[in-house]
């Protein structure tokens, strides 16, 4: 029998993602991939995977899953998300750590806290066929990931491994600090000359917030409108992830991983690569303040973010198994419940 995680409840929007689909933008194919590549990569490191291994991206409200494998090592990373074992008495097993779960155990990813997304990695990864070189789901196009769509109840998401390897569990002593209030750095342009001086000033002086019109394609921002000098149509050109385009309404749209590859609205600025994961985890209602930097500074900040990621990975330390094998079995058999899981 194929080893799998069975979807008992799908959550709001749960998709298979990796670090993105590159090389096909000239065919009009968006990059897709994890909204928060930091969380995706961290979950993979916890599970012992390469950074690009497919994970489940969980938006806002987590899924409930059942283990249909002898055992599986899982890890969630993102916000305050944790794994909650369901049963007679639900049991919080924590987040930002790895753990082994066993056949027929049912768990839920709960409590994302102030993050829009979190990532569930499994040791060995999910066994989905790459599409155009990537496991990422592009739901609008109906391809990639698991059948080109978000997960639904009843789906069996296949696993590469049928049991967890024998190794110590890893975890962070505490979750990384929230980035909800952090200013988002951007570089003006490529079409800043389409905007009034007042608009450029408002962009970096005033506060915006994420409107309810937000998905993997982009987020419309509430707040001050940004006036064009003259025209709000340009002859279409390319779009980078993080570009802030401003249509005729003056209401900016910050483009995220599923954005279209080309477009005809002027882009007042582009969020720097280091801060794409930071905006990726903002949710409707969250404040957004921008700060302008130049390209060399953006590149330096990207290197700095990478160094910080590795520092955090180096801080991973062994943690106790969740109750240990025997306890997990006993739990299954309902002989005990609520043993002392003091590390959870």
């Amino acid at each position, binding site marked *: 029998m194929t080893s799998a995680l069975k979807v008992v409840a799908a959550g709001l929007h749960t998709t298979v993602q990796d670090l993105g689909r590159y090389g096909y933008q000239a065919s*009009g194919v968006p990059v897709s991939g994890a909204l928060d590549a930091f969380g995706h990569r961290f979950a993979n490191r916890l599970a012992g995977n390469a950074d690009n291994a497919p994970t489940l991206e969980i938006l806002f409200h987590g899924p409930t899953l059942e283990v249909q494998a002898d055992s599986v090592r899982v890890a969630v990373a993102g916000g305050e998300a944790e794994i909650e074992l369901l049963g007679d008495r639900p049991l919080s097993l924590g987040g930002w750590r790895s753990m082994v779960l066993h056949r027929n155990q049912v768990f839920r990813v709960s409590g994302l806290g102030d993050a829009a997304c979190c990532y569930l990695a499994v040791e060995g990864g999910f066994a989905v066929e790459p599409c*155009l070189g990537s496991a990422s789901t592009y739901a609008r196009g109906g391809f990639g990931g698991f059948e080109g769509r978000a997960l639904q109840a009843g789906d069996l998401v296949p696993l590469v491994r049928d049991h967890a390897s024998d190794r110590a569990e890893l975890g962070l002593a505490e979750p990384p600090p929230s980035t909800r209030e952090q200013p988002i750095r951007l570089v003006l342009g490529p079409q800043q000359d389409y905007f009034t001086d007042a608009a450029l000033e408002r962009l970096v002086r005033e506060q915006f917030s994420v409107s309810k019109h937000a998905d993997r394609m982009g987020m419309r921002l509430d707040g001050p409108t940004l006036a064009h000098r003259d025209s709000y149509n340009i002859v279409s*050109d390319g779009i980078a992830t993080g570009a802030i385009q401003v249509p005729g309404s003056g209401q900016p749209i910050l483009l995220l991983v599923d954005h279209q590859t080309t477009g005809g609205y002027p882009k007042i600025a*582009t969020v720097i690569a280091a801060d794409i994961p930071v905006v990726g985890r903002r949710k409707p209602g969250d404040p957004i303040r921008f700060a302008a930097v130049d390209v060399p500074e953006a590149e330096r900040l990207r290197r700095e973010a990478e160094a910080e990621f590795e520092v955090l990975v180096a801080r991973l330390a062994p943690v106790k198994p969740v109750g240990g094998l025997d306890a997990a079995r006993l739990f299954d058999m309902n002989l005990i419940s609520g043993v002392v899981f003091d590390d959870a």
Partner: protein
Amino acid sequence: MAVKFLASADSAVIVEFGDRADRAISDQVLALGDRVRALAIAGVVEVVPTFRSLMVHYDPLRTSAQDLIAAIEKALASQSVFDRKRRLWRVPICYERDFAPDLESVARATKLATDEVVRLHAGTRYHVYMIGFVPGFPYMGDLADALVLPRRVDPRIHVPPGSVSIATTQTAIYPLDSPGGWHLIGTTPIQLFDVHAEPPALFAPGDAVEFEPIDARAFAQIRAATERRDYRVESTELAA
């Protein structure tokens, strides 16, 4: 021609050749795209040609805008021509009433007979400027002057796949069910985007396209053959 280098933060460098849809500009964009691809410059993730610019996506951990611009300037100065196979596609299209919801309104707006709209649209060889908007969507031009219209006032929420459309100086085909604001003047039974093909978009920027009018019966036959994966769109290689 002087080019402008624009930055999209530390994610992409845009090489801008002009500010309009123009064949001469497009040829320069495509030639630079071919050269940058052939040079396999370190840190370049991919290049995307558009009407008037080449977007060079890069990995800021592997290169910098400064080094990238220096490499692109070298590529611009080089005279070497990279031979890219360009194709001429013959695309079957049905202009009959049921397949062309906006043909009459286009005829009214352009003060032409519907036959004349069809004759002008099918009588032009188009240049594929770029693929964008949705996977496989080709922007092709230029339309006969008499057919140039602004986009529809009311964009549709659903445009069926295969719809052949016009707006401004361009004609396009919707490969997937998507929203759209262009005028729909015909439908093609062929498939423009297939994730199992390499590359997945049927047309590449720089290709040429001609439309071949067909009736509803031929449409049904070709669509059925397409669904059986038993239909190849007619094409020939273009001389460089």
